């Protein structure tokens, strides 16, 4: 299974390079800036975890990369896949890349699959979208894929319809669809959120299998820090449409320099804590993206804030660590958290 997509010769090794990506939606109430300048790079084979609350802009970012946002969305910045610019690319160009060089797994498997076609048919369609093969060959590849993701009786079940599968199996089918053409980048947008916890592990395992089979880089978007910890190499924390901290998993989890991240980590209930210890949620709610006040958007909820925090939005600057960046005026004074 060789990569079907040719990498354009570039000087650096980044496979996916997002530079200052911004997305705004015009609404009845004004312009909503869902994403306000995100930059990151993903190297081949790497796993990047993007973490944030609802409304932080994490899903919109990946939809923007895939070119799946509504036409009313205003997209700025640059997204380069192997050197090719994706922002502003035509539908046709994007269609050639989607499902082949870059794939996506969505949150809700129940509504993701077309209810009137069989699973095998939809998988075969994904294969034939980018490969000139016969229906029979595509179908047999579909069965192979189903076996790969762990669907029992793959051959018979390929003729079944989506509603005849359980939620976890449906998600596995969607993953199979995403890797059908050996993509270089796999984006998983909250793949486990809509599923039971017991099924989550299976789906994550399937994602592992998928990665191994394709050597694809993966962007895992979630609000669940536990999920990210086991899978990601690097983590990007988003808040109010902007990245507020990035770094390796260890740097983020053990030496975070951003109060929001610290708050997130502290709010996870722990099995090894003494009983009777209260949960420590972050007070307040995320701000409205409609009219952001000046200064750091996290400031109203932050227990470390200083007057500067309300005046000037902190930039994403290097802090202690190899590849560690944080957007906080009091970063580097926070010390190790664990």
């Amino acid at each position, binding site marked *: 299974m060789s990569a079907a997509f040719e990498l354009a010769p570039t000087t650096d090794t980044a496979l996916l390079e997002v530079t200052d990506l911004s997305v705004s939606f015009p609404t009845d109430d004004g312009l909503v800036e869902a994403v306000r300048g995100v930059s990151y790079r993903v190297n081949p084979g790497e796993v990047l975890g993007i973490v944030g609350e609802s409304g932080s802009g994490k899903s919109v970012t990946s939809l923007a990369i*895939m070119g*799946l946002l509504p036409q009313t969305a205003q997209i700025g910045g640059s997204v380069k896949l192997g050197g090719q610019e994706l922002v502003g690319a035509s*539908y*046709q160009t*994007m*269609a*050639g*890349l*989607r*499902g*082949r060089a870059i*794939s*996506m797994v*969505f949150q*809700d498997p129940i*509504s*993701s*699959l*077309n*209810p*009137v076609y069989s699973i095998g048919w939809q998988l075969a*369609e*994904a294969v034939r*979208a*980018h490969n000139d093969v016969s229906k029979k060959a595509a179908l047999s590849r579909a069965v192979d894929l189903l076996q790969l993701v762990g669907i029992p009786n793959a051959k018979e079940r390929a*003729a079944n*319809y989506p*509603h005849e599968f359980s939620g976890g199996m449906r998600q596995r089918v*969607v993953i199979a*669809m*995403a890797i059908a053409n050996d993509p270089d980048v796999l984006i998983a947008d909250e793949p486990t959120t809509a599923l039971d916890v017991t099924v989550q592990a299976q789906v994550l395992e399937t994602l592992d299998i998928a990665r191994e089979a394709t050597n694809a880089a993966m962007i895992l978007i979630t609000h669940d820090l536990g999920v990210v910890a086991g899978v990601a190499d690097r983590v990007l924390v988003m808040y109010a449409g902007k990245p507020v901290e990035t770094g390796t998993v260890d740097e983020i989890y053990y030496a975070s320099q951003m109060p929001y991240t610290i708050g997130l980590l502290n709010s996870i209930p722990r099995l090894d804590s003494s009983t009777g210890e209260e949960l420590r949620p972050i007070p307040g709610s995320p701000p409205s993206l409609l009219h952001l006040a000046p200064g750091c958007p996290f400031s109203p909820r932050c227990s470390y804030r200083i007057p500067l925090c309300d005046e000037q939005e902190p930039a994403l600057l290097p802090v202690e660590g190899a590849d560690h960046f944080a957007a906080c005026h009091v970063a580097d004074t926070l010390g190790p958290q664990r």
Partner: protein
Amino acid sequence: MEGGSLYAYALRRVLISLPLLLFSSMIVYALVHFAGDPLRDLKGRNPPVPEAVLDARRSALGLDKSLPEQYWNWLTGIVSGDFGPSIKGIDIGQDLQVRLGVTLRMVVLAMLIAVVVAMLVGVLSAVKQYSPIDYTATLLGFLALSMPVFWLAALLKEFLAIRLNQAVGKTIVYTVGDRTPNLEGSFFDKLPNIAGHLVLPTIALAAVSYAAWSRYQRSSMLDVLNSDFIRLARAKGLSKRRVLVRHALRCALIPITTVVALDVGAILGGAVITERVFAWHGMGEMLLTSVNDQDVNRLLAWLMVSAVIVVLFNLIADLLYAFLDPRIRYA
């Protein structure tokens, strides 16, 4: 396995329809029994008709028996094809057959045209949302929705028929009747004549149905276009055309089958009015005359036949729906 479950589903739906028709017949019978008085004409005569004559008439028509008994007699009669005596002495069954053919011609054709045009316009309006096409179609649709059928029919008569015929110099489009009386010749000889008579009523009837259906199709298509599985289809890298046709259309065209079936009753009502405008000798005339004459058995025949038509259409729609949407077959 797939085909088997479809047959099982079909069988179940047919079996449900039968008791439905039975209960319909009860309601119909009760309605007519209390609303119609076949002896009204006799009773209203001056000098008053002697009681003995009324009684004789009553027993001749079977009205001296109890209600359930009357109902039973009527029901068993209908099932074997005997609709009972008519006040005017018409052979109800025979007459019904002819009229049914006349009316169904128009109704089926109108429905087909309306459905096809509604689908086309609805889909186009959704895909090109907020474009001039969308706005024009919407406006025209609303206009058709707001027009009384007979007003539109009269309009068509005036502008489409009379002016057109004048311009061409001979009568292509007819305004009266379903065919020219005493028409001779083979089927193909008669066809242009029949078609010429069909044009106006069919357009009138189709216009009103189309309006509601095209709005429905538009919103159904919009729902589908905004759905998650369309997003996934795009994420797979499928071409715009394929996403639209194979995924969006395939799903968006399903709901309209139920809407069309539900509207059959209303369309039959519209047909009654339309036939009146164009003086057709179809089911419409039968309904109106039987009510005016208080011809109970004829009215009952009309109501039962139309109930059967409605149930039949609903059945067809159900089956079509199950065929198109695999999720339904287990319901």
